[in-house]
């Protein structure tokens, strides 16, 4: 029966330089199924609605429970993870597109290297003396831990950047995810030691001051990370830093 099938339109692209094109697929409806299981159905039967045999759709996924961040794509015009996009909650026909702010590798699979490069730029790590046993870590109240925990749930999925009007392929804006990581590491008793370097890194072109406060990042973040609060907080930290540099150094 036709009504038991789902129509899925996929924006495909054979390679980074190729032209995108659309293909339409039909997969059987199953209760509680998600976009991943639809794409898996297409793998098992890679033919379009017109009956044309095509290459299976290429996409990135791994954990399928929204902790790895891999399967992020634009579903019905909105960026999100494919694994938590339940079919019965979506408008039909469903459209799938790759994220537009990152170079497409193939079909729905994009290259998010830029995000990881940004983590290097802001030294998103804690510099320890070594891995040998030197006893307990710093003592800190659970409240502070809780504040850091929400930030450390960021899975570098790129939703916040895809939805950010300030972030584009041809600029070098660092974006909300990176700023939240700066806040995360600056909030750690040991991480604080490198605070100045981290703040310096977000004061250049594409840094914190380029944020236009559209605040879409926080709306689309699947982990509900307080991104806008983090941006303001890093804003405060950089303000104090520049004042210190200018007048008290």
């Amino acid at each position: 029966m036709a009504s038991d099938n789902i129509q899925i339109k996929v924006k495909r692209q054979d390679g980074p330089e190729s032209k995108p094109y659309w293909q339409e697929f039909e997969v059987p409806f199953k209760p509680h199924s998600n976009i991943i299981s639809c794409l898996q159905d297409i793998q098992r039967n890679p033919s379009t609605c017109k009956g044309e045999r095509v290459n299976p759709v290429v996409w990135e996924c791994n954990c399928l429970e929204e902790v790895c961040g891999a399967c992020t794509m634009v579903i019905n015009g909105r960026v999100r993870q494919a694994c938590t996009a339940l079919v019965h909650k979506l408008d039909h026909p469903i459209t799938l597109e790759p994220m537009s702010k990152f170079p497409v590798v193939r079909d729905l699979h994009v290259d998010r290297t830029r995000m990881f490069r940004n983590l290097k730029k802001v030294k998103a790590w804690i510099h320890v003396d070594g891995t040998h046993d030197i006893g307990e870590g710093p003592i800190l109240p659970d409240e502070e831990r809780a504040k850091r925990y929400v930030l450390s749930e960021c899975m570098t999925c790129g939703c916040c950047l895809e939805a950010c009007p300030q972030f584009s392929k041809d600029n070098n804006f660092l974006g909300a995810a990176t700023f939240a990581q700066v806040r995360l590491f600056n909030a750690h008793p040991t991480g604080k030691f490198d605070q100045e370097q981290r703040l310096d890194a977000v004061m250049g072109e594409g840094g914190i001051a380029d944020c236009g406060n559209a605040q879409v990042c926080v709306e689309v973040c699947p982990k509900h990370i307080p991104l806008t609060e983090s941006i303001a907080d890093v804003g405060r930290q950089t303000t104090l830093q520049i004042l210190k540099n200018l007048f008290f150094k």
Partner: protein
Amino acid sequence: MDRVSKDQLHYLLLKTHSLTGLVPIGAYLCVHLSVNSLRTVGVLPYQLSIDAINNLPFLIWIETIFIYIPLLFHSFMGFYLSKNARYNLARYRYPRNGLYTLQRLSGAVVFVFLVYHVGTTVVPKWTNGKHLFEAAPFLIEIMNMEFQTWTGRIIYLIGIASAAFHFANGLWGFCISWGLVVGVRAQRNAALAFSLVGVVLTVMGLATVFEFSVHPESTVPTIAGVFSGKGGG
């Protein structure tokens, strides 16, 4: 330059953009709109305020340094920055995204409006050599003419509302950018407070426009000595 690296220079530039929006431009906007609203009280107080300004020593320098240069800097930085924006309000319909879009749009509108506003007031004032006490009657006459037509009224309504919005919303952005307001609730409270500022400024501006439109009164040109002569006796 060991105090400030090249990267930090970029930061300073952007911070200055944000700051100039508040002072002097924002502050000037508030003064300008509230002084102009004297017109709703009567022509004379309004006229006196213009007299006071036009009798300031070094007026051209004051205006250039505290208004024209910051304004031009703020405008050109603004245009440069908004070049980077990839508007996506159609996809992500959130109030804040709307305000983000509107902020950039209103900035452009205000810029065009200011070109018109300055071009039809200050520029003819200078070219016609109307200084000191001659300025007020000249300018008031221009304004009376302006608000005779709906075109003029609408241009000013849009201009004033855009400026008030741009300022109030920019104030909010300033607070976040400088880290004065951090928490989500604090951000919301600030937004409420600043929208009140925006509304007050708009109402003041609109009231002035209304007064001009309804009572286009001219005044007798005041000249030096007339008042002192009457009052002094």
